[in-house]
């Protein structure tokens, strides 16, 4: 199938027509005669979004999400590549598991599913997993993470950072000092004290970030910090980047919008790891994302079954789904507030994450000859989030009932229209 997209707006604001044929962007003159014309009528064109932090729950927790349902959720949210975190059952710590997830993604065929390998066997933080075998497998893993758990042992972290240099890999750290967060339930602050919920101090996150940027500096390797949440963490990254440390960082949409105020009625839909922080942190994260200190937005899409949220706060699972709301939250918090334009949105949600993950066919400039991975957004339209109408298998969105700007109307993956139209 070939397409002519008429009157779209490129990230730089230029009005354009785009032609797609045989997976690639082509010159409109070169299109087949029987192409389909789609009138974009001034809608925004973005390179297909790339998520560097997704939980797909397969294998092991298919009642919450599968590679197939997660892929569908992704393309509805405008994503053409997602990265499956390693905390499945079995853990993605061998070539066999990452190849399985990769193959399930290809079979689904809606978007690329790039597995992330576990840094340590069973995510237990003690012994390196078969990192080389995962890198050499058909899944070509380049990002390694024990996400959900911190690689807390400094020697293991050092070894991991060194080891992935062999194939230009990156360690994505879940920064959480375990000794400071035993039984932690939410941000440590005035609200946790009032609610009687065990606090999760900002320093527990910042201490690991500080240690790891020093390790990355020492080993001259690539470090990525997952889901930054604190103003102090932004400052540490800013300082490290100014010294030339190869560190990148991500922020989630929910940490760009929500604060620990939402915990007040003990509804665990707002329970997430790392926790929602303060307004001052939210503002620091937005500023960091705008000035590039924070490189990317990543969803940390974390589906959970109904019963794991329909209970007491302390019993509930951590996490929120996010693939279908991420772009809208970024438009609301960053574009509508005037701190980012769509050139920056394309960078933070597509170009930069593809670069960090070494996802070569994604995050490309929208020019002739490139693979046609792209997303069309009606930025003027608004929608009301309804957890019952989402494609993800789980309903744990904190944004149910929120009115948000930006509706994804079409997603093209490898030249195929995989969502919309």
């Amino acid at each position, binding site marked *: 199938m070939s397409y002519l997209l008429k009157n779209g707006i490129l990230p730089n604001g230029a009005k354009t027509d785009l032609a797609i044929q045989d997976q690639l962007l082509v010159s409109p003159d070169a299109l087949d005669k029987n192409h389909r014309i789609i009138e974009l009528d001034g809608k925004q064109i973005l390179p297909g979004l790339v998520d560097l932090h997704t939980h797909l729950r397969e294998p092991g927790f298919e009642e919450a999400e599968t590679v197939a349902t997660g892929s569908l959720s992704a393309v509805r949210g405008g994503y053409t590549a997602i990265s499956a975190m390693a905390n499945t059952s079995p853990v993605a710590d061998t070539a066999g598991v990452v190849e399985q997830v990769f193959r399930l993604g290809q079979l689904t065929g809606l978007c690329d599913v790039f597995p992330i390998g576990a840094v340590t066997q069973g995510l237990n933080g003690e012994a390196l997993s078969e990192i080389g075998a995962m890198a050499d497998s058909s899944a070509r893993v380049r990002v390694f993470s024990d996400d959900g758990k911190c690689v807390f042992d400094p020697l293991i972290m050092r070894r991991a950072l060194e080891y992935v240099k062999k194939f230009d890999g990156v360690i994505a750290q879940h920064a959480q000092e375990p000794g400071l967060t035993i039984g932690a339930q939410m941000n440590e*602050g*005035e609200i946790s004290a009032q609610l009687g919920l*065990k606090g999760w101090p900002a320093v527990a996150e910042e201490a690991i970030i500080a240690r790891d940027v020093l390790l990355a500096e020492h080993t001259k390797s690539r470090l990525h910090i997952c889901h930054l949440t604190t103003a102090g963490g932004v400052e540490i990254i800013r300082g490290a980047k100014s010294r030339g440390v190869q560190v990148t960082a991500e922020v989630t949409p929910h940490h760009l919008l929500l604060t620990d105020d939402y915990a007040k009625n003990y509804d665990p839909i707002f329970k997430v790891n790392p926790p929602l922080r303060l307004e001052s942190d939210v503002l620091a994260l937005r500023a960091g994302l705008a000035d590039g200190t924070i490189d990317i937005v990543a969803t940390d899409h974390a589906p959970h079954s109904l019963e794991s949220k329909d209970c*007491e706060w302390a019993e509930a699972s951590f996490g929120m789904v996010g693939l279908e709301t991420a772009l809208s939250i970024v438009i609301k918090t960053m574009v509508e507030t005037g701190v980012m334009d769509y050139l920056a949105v394309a960078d933070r949600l597509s170009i930069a994450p593809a670069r960090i993950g070494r996802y070569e066919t994604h995050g490309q400039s929208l020019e002739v000859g490139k693979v046609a991975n792209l997303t069309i957004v009606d930025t003027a339209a608004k929608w009301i989030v309804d957890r019952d109408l989402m494609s993800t298998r789980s309903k744990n969105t904190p944004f149910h009932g929120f009115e948000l700007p930006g509706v994804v109307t079409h997603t093209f993956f490898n030249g195929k229209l995989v969502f919309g139209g």
Partner: protein
Amino acid sequence: MKHLLSINDLSREDAILILDTAAELSRIADGPMKKLPTLRGRTIVNLFAEDSTRTRISFEAAAKRLSADVINFSAKGSSLSKGESLKDTALTLQAMGADAVVIRHPASGAPTRLAENQWMSGAVINAGDGTHEHPSQALLDAFTIRKHLAKGATDLAGLRVAIVGDILHSRVARSNVLLLTKLGAHVTLIAPPTLLPFGVESWPVSISYDLDSVISNVDVLMMLRIQQERMQERFFPNAREYSRYFGLNRDRMNSMLPNSIVMHPGPMNRGLEITADAADSARSVIVEQVSNGVSVRMAILYLLLAGLPIEGGIN
């Protein structure tokens, strides 16, 4: 007021109404007819997911003196210990027609979840949730303080109350700070810095790390229980050092003002936060707190439930 989840649910006037009602009910309890027919035909469930003999029997006595039917549902040997969810427990209670649930739960916010979800329609009374709140304890403490020291006033204006011990993990302290300050008392929290909550400086209280500098200037000294697990978690070096700085002994008690009183929500660790001679002294109102607890809980049940129509029309 449909539920009692937090002292924040109460206005100053609501709190005084509860105390006044408790005073009235305690006068009746002192008379020949201890039992009132007010809640006849009502079912009150004591849902205790955490061990607590004294609070449970206090609520049970209160409910029975108001002629309610009481069902005790406690953790050991019940479905709660078999992993049944709070939701399923609530649905069960709803199906059994509970008019009120008195809940003690180790998870902060469990009573709020019970009240705010559509799992059940009855009134929810928080009998202590995790490290959050214990509102009926604060109300009985305020009742006891008022009775001894308010000189006929309805509130606690101008009284100085010190709360000593593990403020960080204490639901009693949280509820008391909210209630006593609402009623006009000046509250000082005394604890080692490790046992004070983050951000406590924003609370409407004074803070001290030094019991001796405060003890001779307060009307009420409220000692909190130190739990064994806090010692294992190394919040302070050992029990002996804790007692030396924060325990109430005879010497410290002798430095208190003439009419001041000593309180403790129980159960006490005699010899740790309070010595036996202090606990059993003339200043101690600890046993009286227990009997006042029944009157205050009668008042809470009465005010939450008596306004409702009784099914079948019997009254």
